């Protein structure tokens, strides 16, 4: 019987919620290897992350800015009512402004680069 990555992720989440020990992870990996599904691991991890975040109400937020600016990050935290610190990446090529991506599904692109691109395209 072949299992879908989603089923693995759900099962692992159940076991992990019960007992979050390295032993659980080790056993889970052993099971995946036994079933010959090691190639599915990236997908399982992706699904696990999604499920875990959903269960715990966590929003995975990534902020990309051109240079270090605490005030922008604080503003983002405030607007999105984040419990945890967002992931911050300094990306010089966006020139200015900010790009906020939420759960890798929604993006708010307020960077200078995209605005310039947009202007030239029009």
């Amino acid at each position: 019987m072949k299992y879908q990555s989603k089923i693995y992720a759900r099962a692992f989440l159940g076991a992990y919620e019960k007992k979050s020990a390295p032993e659980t992870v080790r056993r889970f990996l052993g099971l995946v290897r036994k079933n010959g599904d090691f190639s599915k691991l990236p997908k399982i991890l992706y699904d696990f992350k999604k499920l875990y975040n959903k269960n715990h109400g966590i929003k995975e937020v990534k902020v990309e800015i051109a240079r270090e600016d605490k005030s922008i990050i604080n503003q983002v935290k405030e607007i999105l009512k984040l419990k945890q610190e967002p992931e911050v990446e300094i990306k010089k090529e966006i020139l200015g402004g900010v790009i906020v991506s939420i759960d890798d599904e929604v993006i708010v692109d307020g960077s200078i680069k995209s605005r310039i691109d947009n202007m030239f395209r029009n």
Partner: protein
Amino acid sequence: MQEIINKLKKEIEGFKSEIKAEKIGRVFEVGDGVCRIWGLSDAMAQELLEIETDSGAVNAIALNLEEDSIGAVILGDFLKVKEGNVVKGTGRVLSLRVGDELVGRVVNALGDPIDGRGPVFDTVDSRGQDAVKARTNADHTQTDAESPRLSALSPRESAPGYYPVEKIAPGVITRESVNTPLHTGIKAIDAMIPIGRGQRELIIGDRQTGKTAIVIDAIINQQQDTSRRTPICIYVAVGQRESKVAKIVAELKKKGAMKYTIVVSASASEPAPLQYLAPFAGCAIGEYFMDKGQDALVIYDDLTKHASAYRQVSLLLRRPPGREAFPGDIFYLHSRLLERAAKLNKDYGGGSLTALPIIETQLGDVSAYIPTNVISITDGQIYLEPDLFYQGIRPAVNVGLSVSRVGSAAQTKAMKKVAGRLRLDLAQFRELQAFVQFATDLDESTKKRIVRGQVLTEILKQNDLEPMLFEKQVAVLYAGVNGYLDTIDIAEIKNFEKKFLEYIEKMNDDILEKIKTSGELSQEIEDRLKKIIEDFKKM
């Protein structure tokens, strides 16, 4: 210079940008022209996507919508796409900018010119403003100054000038049956396997049997057929050598046929997704002319390579393979493409779109998967045989196996009159062909039939790039089926035909004109034709 700066300043001042939340996806797997994307949960089937790479946007089409990922084919340089690239939806399906300006041009599957003669359209229209520019391998040589022609639009808000690449074929209400001939200028075809405007006639045969030669003749002949509207011809080359396409374009130019022809080329070196799209793009261009009430002729050269390109895309997208490893929807791929050929009725403009798909068989195997599929979709087929080709019967049409299911309704009365006898004589000849070797021992009537068959076979031979006017075909075939040539040596028949046509043209030009305008072979015309043939034979 100052003017340009001022203009730029003005534009910058007037520029407003809004920041809004967009749904995105991320590439998690990429290779060989396809990629898989996580996210983008509201993507449509066939939606145009935009992958943001480090060196600009690359377009893709969403073909597989799965539970939690999307399989997309990349239109352009897939080497630029990397894992983790952000993908945005455009909310629109792929479409092509079409217009009369395309006539005489050579374009790729996305409508970008590849003939080095600059942009196809002079202006960037309002739709073009937000058109997405697709960078393809083929247009690396093009300058950035070109107006973007690849655009996307939703099926509902179809802007004038843009046609979706995939479109539902015209319905029953809009159609009428085929009633106007499309003369190819090839005697064997126009007489026995007639093609009507709006028909789909398959040309099938092994490699090197003259499939392309037939369609090129058909294109060239359209300028001679002055009694009817000249159709716009669209030659779609799928997976062909660039040199072959260049040769065809040069030939068409030389014969003056590029004035009404468009070449859509997705050569062998272009990525499979573009080869897969090219016939649909050609069809969209044809539909533009059909909707305008004009006639269009689309040639798909060839659908075997198209099927292979689609198989590649499908297998890379991990769709389950079926017979000969083709995906399950390969039949639907070709049927929906060929179904778009139509003859619209007067209420819908009276335009038509004729399709001449080409299929290449392997060692004459017509029972392979793709040939049987396309044979069953089309309204008949022209079957070319290598044996006939090597015997010197060119075009190597096997008239016994070739059929046209609807074309006879469109045939002119004059041609019908001579073709009926022709078909019968040739069928009888085929039955007796085995006895040709012992012709001396046969009875008189059998001998006569064999001679008649040989004469007619000789008449039907024709050099390529020499399409013949319909009225001339009628005159020559009339002489053949009525036995006027039976006494002439077989080797002399070609010569006779040439001189006979010259004689008619010089001495009795009006009879050709009469056949052409009336399309009939009335008693009066027939009597005159008889007299002309007899007079000529006496000379």
